């Protein structure tokens, strides 16, 4: 009985947060549409970056060399998944996370603290940027579909299910791995350099981790688990992932959620408003 009540309560909270999120996204989309020319330029800029990202695919295709067991089609699959996740990262997290240092520096956080929702939720999901997301998600999905067709993979329900699970795990890890460095702004206020470094690391996934040296691969899977993102879903599709890796990625995603909320609490405890 008591358990049932608790579950109901949790479901209700989740429903409430989904509703809030929908409202927040609607607001930020409306705000973007107000400056339509800006929005269109942002789309075009992102398309140009998409072209730059697919340069490596062109290199591999025209050289037509199988790299460490990965055919050019396999590599296109990796780049596709990387591009989709970049779209999600830019659309959902990027603007919010890079804004945290502004909130702290300018004291805007004060007003957000007073809102009757989780502050961590509000800060992390306040704005949605569809201008950055759309070109990447469409481009990435096309790459994945083309790659799957060219490899001649047979897609079944179970594979699709695990692919989606690993993509969600990737998004969760993205959240944790990118949020933690931006929380450092609570202590050092201006952390442009750290942010730049973090997003530069992100680009390492532009290529499958298989091209890097063994030590770098281990580092990127077990120490700073950036390689799990986008590599593991791709490895699953080409049938080269071990069960150990799947379990590890789920563990990492849970650990990162716990760790980021812990650091968040510590950060907030030390927050001294800037303006009042």
């Amino acid at each position, binding site marked *: 009985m008591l358990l049932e009540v608790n579950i109901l309560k949790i479901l209700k909270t989740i429903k409430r947060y989904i509703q809030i999120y929908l409202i927040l996204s609607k607001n930020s989309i409306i705000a973007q549409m107000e400056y339509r020319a800006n929005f269109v330029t942002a789309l075009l800029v992102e398309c140009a970056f998409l072209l730059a990202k697919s340069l490596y695919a062109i*290199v591999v295709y025209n*050289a037509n060399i199988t*790299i460490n067991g990965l055919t050019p089609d396999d590599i296109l699959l990796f780049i596709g998944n990387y591009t989709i996740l970049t779209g999600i990262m830019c659309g959902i997290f990027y603007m919010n996370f890079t804004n945290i240092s502004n909130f702290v520096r300018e004291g805007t956080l004060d007003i957000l603290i007073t809102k009757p929702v989780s502050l961590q939720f509000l800060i992390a999901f306040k704005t949605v940027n569809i201008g950055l997301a759309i070109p990447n998600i469409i481009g990435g999905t096309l790459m994945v579909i083309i790659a799957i067709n060219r490899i001649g993979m047979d897609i079944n329900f179970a594979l699709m299910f695990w692919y989606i699970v690993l993509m969600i795990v990737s998004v969760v890890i993205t959240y944790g791995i990118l949020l933690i460095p931006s929380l450092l702004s609570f202590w050092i206020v201006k952390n442009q350099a750290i942010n730049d470094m973090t997003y530069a690391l992100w680009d390492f996934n532009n290529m499958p981790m298989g091209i890097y*040296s063994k030590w770098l691969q281990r580092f990127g899977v077990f120490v700073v688990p950036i390689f799990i993102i986008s590599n593991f879903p791709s490895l699953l599709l080409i049938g080269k992932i071990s069960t150990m890796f799947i379990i590890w990625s789920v563990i990492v995603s849970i650990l990162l959620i716990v760790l980021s909320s812990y650091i968040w609490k510590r950060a907030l405890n030390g927050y001294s408003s800037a303006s009042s």
Partner: protein
Amino acid sequence: MITQGKYLKSFSLGFQSSLEYRANFIISFLSTLFPITIQYFLWTALYNNSPNGKVYGYNYSQIIAYTIFAAIVSKFVSGGFESEVNEDIKNGGLNKFLIKPIDYYKYRIACFLGQKVSQFFIMAIILILTIAILNITLGYSINLARIFIFFIVIIISIQLSFIFVYCTSMAAFWLSEAGGIFVIGGLLLNIISGGIVPLEVFGNTINHIFNFLPFKYIIYFPINILNGVIVGRQIIYGVLLQIFWIIVCKKFADMLWKQGLKRHNAVGG
């Protein structure tokens, strides 16, 4: 042109401002380290799996050299004054040039070249260090004549690069928000002038088209002189084409400027 006093002054102003921001220029080299690392692993993996040790006609040390040189040269030839032109056009700063006997184009290029003087020496030091390191680690061949020709050709390249950036910045006459166009223009120009990967990557057909276009003479051409891929007569033809394109593109820039001025309404003047 630059010997005229007023432009010489602009030249020295550019030089002074670049001295002030020299740390910024050096740091901007550091930001290229990550992409270079990724490309280093990509090329290394390709060569390890290549049956004959040649990819796109380059040997391993040449391609690694290309990757690093491309990053360095891209930084050196890049514009950076688009937003200043944009400001001038949008906020009426242009008016002070229009009413004085100063040619805006000459003023800009004098300023730009002045800025590049100190960057030229920084680039040269980094480049020579890189060549030395590549020579020790990968056996990259050093040829003093090629290095000398490279430094001459790069001075012509940078003027070609200037004209393209100048033309792009003219977009501010037509667009209310030109910042995005500058980013796109800069990125595309970098890709098709060979600033990220060598142009052979795009296949034969596209390379035939590139041969008729001016872009490859900005980055690809000087780097491959240094690399020993472009030799002998090809260098002379290339330099002649560079000069030809500078003349043609300057005409185009003048045309854009004239058309743009017709639309210019001198806000804030």
